[in-house]
């Protein structure tokens, strides 16, 4: 039995530190937004800013890593088997069909994942960053050409982007339970290794997460 390394150490480090930071940002962000009181506004705002800068630093590393390893190609969209994957989640998963996609180190994400992560990386995240940085540097607007902007508008865009992010996180976590077993998709994201049987081409559904 072989064990294939699907997620390298860097990818796992990146995924989980990003996960922790995003959950922290959501938790502190919605407190800053006034949705509840847990840490106190001041503490929540401080931690939110700190986590945001850590995430910025992480992203700089990740973008560099994508660029030099060529792994950015993992997120190029494809229509190949996209319909089949969607159909699987709507029908096949209930009737016991096999997953139409097989994960390899060259194609770690199924077509639906590729599309979702691409939208996340090219639309939602930039929206969060742009509105968040503007929000953070509100006091410099007058001197940097943003004088016409309204804080309310920026805050609403940032909030809207946060809702999209929260919706993604919920769907992402749920879909991570849709492997052969509850945790079979989670395991490679922790250990890095896919179970050997399916890497050999056994008929069990490849884990889509």
């Amino acid at each position, binding site marked *: 039995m072989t064990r294939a390394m699907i997620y390298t150490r860097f990818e796992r480090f990146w995924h989980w530190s990003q996960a922790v930071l995003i959950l922290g940002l959501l938790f502190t962000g919605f407190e*800053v*937004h*006034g949705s509840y*009181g847990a840490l*106190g*506004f*001041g503490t929540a*705002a*401080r931690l939110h*800013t700190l986590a945001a800068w850590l995430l910025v630093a992480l992203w700089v590393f990740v973008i560099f890593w994508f660029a030099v390893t060529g792994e950015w190609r993992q997120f190029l969209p494809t229509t190949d088997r996209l319909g089949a994957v969607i159909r699987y*989640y709507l029908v096949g*998963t*209930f*009737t*016991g069909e096999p997953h139409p996609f097989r994960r390899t180190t060259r194609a770690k994400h199924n077509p639906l994942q590729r599309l979702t992560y691409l939208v996340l990386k090219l639309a939602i995240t930039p929206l969060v960053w742009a509105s968040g940085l503007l929000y953070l540097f*509100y*006091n410099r607007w007058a001197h940097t050409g943003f004088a016409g902007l*309204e*804080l*309310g508008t920026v*805050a*609403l865009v940032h*909030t*809207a982007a*946060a*809702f*999209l992010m*929260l*919706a993604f996180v*919920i*769907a992402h976590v*749920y879909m991570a*339970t*849709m492997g052969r077993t509850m945790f079979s998709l989670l395991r490679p994201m922790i250990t890095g290794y896919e179970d050997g049987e399916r890497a050999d081409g056994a008929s069990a559904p490849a884990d889509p997460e």
Partner: protein
Amino acid sequence: MGIVLGLLLLGLVARAVSVSAAVVEGESPSTADHGEFEVLDGPFDSAIDVTRACLGCHSKAADQVQRTIHWRWEFRHPETGQRLGKRHVINSFCGSVWSNEPRCTSCHVGYGWTDMHEPPPQADDQVDCLVCHDTTGTYWKLPAGAGHPPYAETRSSKSSGAPGAPVDLAHVARNVGLSGRANCGSCHFYGGGGDGVKHGDLDSSLVEPPRSLDVHMSAQGADFRCAECHTSWGHRVAGSRYATNARDTRGIDIPGRTDDSRASCESCHGLQPHGTAKLNDHVDRVACQSCHIPEFARGGVATKMWWDWSTAGRLGDDDQPLTIRDAAGHLSYLSTKGSFRYAEDVVPAYFWFDGTMRYTLRDEPIDADHPPVAINRFSGGPDDADARIWPFKVMRGRQPYDTVNRTLLVNHVYGDDDTALWTNFDWARALAAGTAFADQPYSGEYGFVETVMYWPITHMVAPASAALDCGACHARDGRLAALGGFYLPGRDRGAWVERLGWGLVLLVLAASGAHAGVRVWTRGRRGRQA
């Protein structure tokens, strides 16, 4: 090389030590001991004689004082052109100085101003040097003596409760010095007719305040005199409630480069006073006072928040004036003055304030149909760069007005005559007398209208550790809940973003739950079939 450096360092340290040793505790820096001057030996028959002695050396002092607002009780507002000052305004406490002179002018920095038609007495010796420069704490002015201290035994007593003994003028004269907190406080702490009544952030608790009450004036803090911030030049004192510097953009006051006034926090603390950038981001929009004075009237002295004149005049069953106190021991009714509400540890109200105060003067029409009538008002808003969010004491009450001419009325409250309200309890006669004295047109028809007066709060600065938390304002129902016109994080949100956002989150949760349910159900069925 090392030795040379070491010697240089030693020299620097020695220099630093010698500079800091320049201030010796308990030692006066004054170059004169007034106890040694024969001219101050006395005895003095009158305080006026003391002033003459002072002017013998300080020959320009009276001239200087007589140019100031403390003397003239008059202030021409540079922006609005309004003629303000005690000689002209009506407030929501005792109303107006006119027709009540000897009582109100007991706080005039002079002697014998008994008629508001005239400016204060012109002679140099009518200036009161002692009320500001007494260091013994024994000088006091009679409550209704037009500025004079008691020269003989008196039934009146100092507001702070000292017995009514005559002042030893020679003793006071030999012990003059710089104005301390108690000097300024002898009038400013007792405005409105009693300790702490008027301002809310100025009362007798500031004479010896604990650090928690006022970090600057406390002996455990900086032990500042009022004049440390209210700097003066030729007896002209910095700082104004009529023309406030609501946003000091000059920062730390460097002699020769700025306005030589320390009557703003920024004068010492600068424009970046906090250690964290986000807090400093607030100073252009939020006055320091808003966060650093969490409540006013914190020193154990209550301040008056409501004064309803309309109930004044009701006498007891024995036809004697009534004095009623509330459960906390504060006055709640006086036949002379009406009904009151006092409060301690009051949370201020917050407004955008550009520093320019306008008053409703007695010749200005009021809109009595839409009370409360604003005794004073100010402008400023989120788009006004000169304005910041300031804390205020909001004084409310009901005051007499002319129902025909629609003006606030001069009320004759004090006097040993048959018209003064406080001795005769007859509104019609008191208002007729007050308006006649003040040459104010009066129809003879009066009513009472609710009024509101705004007092900016700037004293009783707490230690930094007791400043407001961010969440005091950044909250749905925080202290700034009522202040509209700008987006405040933590308070404001967009209704549609909320609806759509939470709707989407709930939808994803519900879809995931339903999907999971069907998965479990179909898997169970497949299992049974297999």
